[in-house]
């Protein structure tokens, strides 16, 4: 396959996939179980998720490794199985998409707080990420995506860990911002400008935002990022904050709603557009069509 970064640098726009967890739960992930444990017991479930998103039009699919760093896995006493869990996830994604889509290794927060406000040493965090990255990159992913980060130091440690394992692996890093009266900040107090600068310095090739609170906020965040940086941008929005119909969560943003606004992300210059919590293969299908339609217009 064509090198991912070269393709994006030429101005191509790629569509990512949507939520993983919801489908895992539908397929029997029990409350209190690590989503990544399915990579040990039923790797075919993650494979199915990747296949569903590929069929919907995703050009990049993410591995089921969001909580696959040993520090995070230790919450479930699964840290000794880090290698198996991460390797199986890449193999599952690969057998679903072969070379019809890029595989992005998902890497989420450790669930620990760094010193001085928490009790975790930066070096322990770095080693935890590095151990996960080593497996993911050796197993042949096309890129790494450090995501849902709120602490800039933690995010930069993960980016560095990936680049130290392989200086040539494309690394994306996306943080989760909240709208406050003072502007967008992560819960740890990182502004969009600080995130852009810090992630770039750490060596990220692609920077951006994921999760959050709906795609309209993401459009504002993407504009701020564009003002701050020349880097390639990535946005994976959730489908808004869920509301409840009885006991059933309903995410407010429909595939059509998100697809319409994805066009605006294209016009801002975002290179990778995908979904997060609450987005489904139906969302990705609509987003792909919307992105293709504006892409064709600009080609003419």
């Amino acid at each position, binding site marked *: 396959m064509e090198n991912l970064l070269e393709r994006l640098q030429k101005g191509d726009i790629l569509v990512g996939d949507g939520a993983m967890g919801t489908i895992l739960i539908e397929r029997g992930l029990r409350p209190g179980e690590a989503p990544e444990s399915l990579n040990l017991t039923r790797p075919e479930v993650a494979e199915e998720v990747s296949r569903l998103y590929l069929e919907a039009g995703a050009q990049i699919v993410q591995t089921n490794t969001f909580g696959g760093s040993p520090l995070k896995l230790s919450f479930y006493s699964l840290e000794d199985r880090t290698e198996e869990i991460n390797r199986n996830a890449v193999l599952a994604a690969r057998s679903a998409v072969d070379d019809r889509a890029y595989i992005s290794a998902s890497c989420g927060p450790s669930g620990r707080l760094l010193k001085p406000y928490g009790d975790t040493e930066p070096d322990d965090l770095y080693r935890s990420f590095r151990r996960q990255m080593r497996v993911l990159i050796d197993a042949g992913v096309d890129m790494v995506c450090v995501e849902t980060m709120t602490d800039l130091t933690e995010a930069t440690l993960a980016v560095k860990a990936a680049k130290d394992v392989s200086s040539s692996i494309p690394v994306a890093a996306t943080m989760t911002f909240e709208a406050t009266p003072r502007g967008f900040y992560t819960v740890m107090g990182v502004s969009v400008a600080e995130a852009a600068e810090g992630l770039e310095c750490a060596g990220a090739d692609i920077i951006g935002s994921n999760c959050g609170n709906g795609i309209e906020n993401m459009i504002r965040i993407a504009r701020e990022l564009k003002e701050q940086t020349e880097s390639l941008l990535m946005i994976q929005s959730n489908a808004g904050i*869920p509301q409840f119909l009885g006991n059933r969560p309903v995410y407010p943003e429909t595939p059509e709603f998100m697809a319409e606004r994805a066009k605006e992300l294209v016009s801002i210059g975002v290179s990778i557009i995908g979904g997060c919590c609450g987005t489904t293969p139906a969302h990705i299908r609509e987003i792909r069509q919307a992105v293709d339609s504006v892409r064709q217009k600009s080609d003419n």
Partner: protein
Amino acid sequence: MMDILADISQHLAQGDHERVSQLTKKALEQHTSPEEILNKALIEGMNVVGTRYRNHEIFLPDVLLAAKAMYAGMDVLRPLFLKGGIPTSGKVVLGTVQGDLHDIGKNLVGIMLKGAGFEVIDLGSNVAPEKFIGVAKQEDAGVIGMSALLTTTMPVMGRVVELLKREGLTHRIKTIIGGAPVSEKFAAEIGADAYGYDSAHAIECIKELMNEV
């Protein structure tokens, strides 16, 4: 005398736990009563921190550092309260509901509650309904606080309220819920006594609930 209390409060808000510890000792040497230090320096300091956090002037790391400073001050005072323990505004059992490991919001409420003088029994994450109720009964707590960030785990909150009703305990154990996907409407639907939309609001609600038990 007020000066040293204001000084403690200020250093607490800056998250300087060493200085808070030193100044608390100094205040005791100057014969300030432990109660006065607790209420007018430590609790007052956390109050300021809570307001600043609510106004988005400071962020989570600042709150965590301030809490560390508050605990440093309380550690100095604790031996002096030995007989009855540190006086409290009431007991609260806190936890993130079963199947949910997102506990930053819940931890924040715990910090603010301690800062407001409550005794907090934190059950951590992934707490079963029976455990919330068992501990609340055993500890004679007035309020159970439940947090969830995942939509899939929210029904657990309803089960806690149901169990309390079944055991006829709703008059002496009140419930409050919170978390990103939780709403006032959801609280009403499951029959929880209150919904805290942020940590500061949760503390206000809990103060009111304590008056009802």
